[in-house]
């Protein structure tokens, strides 16, 4: 369970570091053709199956792939990287939707008071923080619940890359349905607890 949390948490944080600034950039450039195209593309990518991302990342990280020299395949880092790629379109497009709600008013107000573009973007982010937190949470849940990437890039190695979803798949293949159901219950409870905790945090802010 701790491994699942750590891997999916790192993946979400990693994806957030580029997805949220990208969302800000896209919202600021809202009317430009490039921004609109990028948002359309990201929206489409949110529905790409996890096995497709798993396959592409497998080819990149495999020994003969461009990043093969890093020897990351079948490590927790590989799963985290794959999950980060998976949740990037989701976090970017949902964050852009949240930010566009405050962009028009907060951006102009900040600029009208003499903000630099960076300061205005910061004000916009602060104002949208509760919804941005929800978006990050959405990304975390997506990463935590995916199976294809964890299986293809992690290999389900016991004590090393086995996470909740791959453990459930393994128990089902063994016919251990009771254990699989228990693990599913734990995964579901975990998702609920993290959801509630982060939402409460957002409300307090």
């Amino acid at each position, binding site marked *: 369970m701790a491994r699942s949390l750590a891997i999916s948490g790192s993946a979400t944080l990693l994806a957030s570091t580029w997805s949220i600034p990208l969302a800000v950039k896209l919202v600021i450039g809202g*009317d430009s053709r490039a921004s609109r195209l990028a948002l359309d593309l990201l929206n489409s990518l949110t529905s790409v199956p996890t096995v497709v991302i798993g396959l592409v990342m497998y080819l990149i990280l495999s020994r003969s792939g461009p990043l093969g020299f890093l020897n990351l395949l079948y490590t927790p880092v590989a799963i985290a990287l794959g999950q980060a790629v998976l949740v990037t379109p989701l976090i970017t497009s949902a964050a852009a939707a949240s930010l566009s709600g405050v962009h028009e*008013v*907060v951006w*102009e*107000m*900040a*600029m*009208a*008071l*003499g*903000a*630099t573009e960076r*300061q205005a973007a910061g*004000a916009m982010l*602060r*104002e949208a923080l509760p919804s941005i937190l929800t978006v990050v949470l959405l990304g975390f849940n997506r990463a935590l619940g995916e199976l294809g990437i964890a299986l293809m890039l992690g290999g389900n190695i016991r004590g090393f890359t086995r996470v909740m979803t791959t453990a459930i798949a393994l128990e089902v293949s063994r016919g251990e349905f009771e254990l699989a159901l228990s693990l599913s219950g734990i995964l579901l409870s975990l998702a609920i607890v993290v959801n509630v905790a982060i939402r409460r945090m957002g409300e307090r*802010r």
Partner: protein
Amino acid sequence: MIELLDVRYSYPRGAEALRGVALTIREGITSLVGPNGSGKTTILKISAGLLRPAAGQVLVDGSDLWSADPEERLRLRRSVVYVHESPVVMRGTVEENVAFGLRLRGVPDEEAREGVREAMEMLGLSQLASASARTLSAGQRQLVALARALAVSPRHLLLDEPTANLDRENRRRVARVLRTLAREGVSVAVATHDRLLALEISDRAVLIEDGLVAAEGGPSEVLEGL
């Protein structure tokens, strides 16, 4: 002083909003009057550097805003403050909202506190300092937005319908504050449909029609025909 020289502007995928406006916002109070959609708000936003004109020049205290280097442009922009007609308040207390512009400018804490206190006092907001800004009425929000602008002591203050949500008492208070600022040498421009306000406080009035300056002069003279 802010000068607009033959300024043209079109909104993306929209008609031409300004069709060669020549206008000077000088010390004292200038009222911009005219029907909805005539271009008053666009003039204020262009004067504040929030919109870049398609053609023409915007001079702030004699310097061309859009040919200045980024550092100089920021300095010029910071001498002008624009307050939108729909007052925006952010999460946090009234005091934090009023301090926002000062924080952007990196004003030291003690000086900022003093600026915030003065601005809130001027607009009768002192009692609300620690209230959550999001819980305020539309009128109170308008006062907070105005206090936020006053706190940074702008040389040029541009207000879009500043009394739209205010009751009589607060309307009088705002009028008084604007007159005081004008006496202190601030150039104030007010886009308004409030004919009485324009007559009461303005030194000059400018009638905007269909993206052009249709008339300008003394307020009673310009407003007479409206």
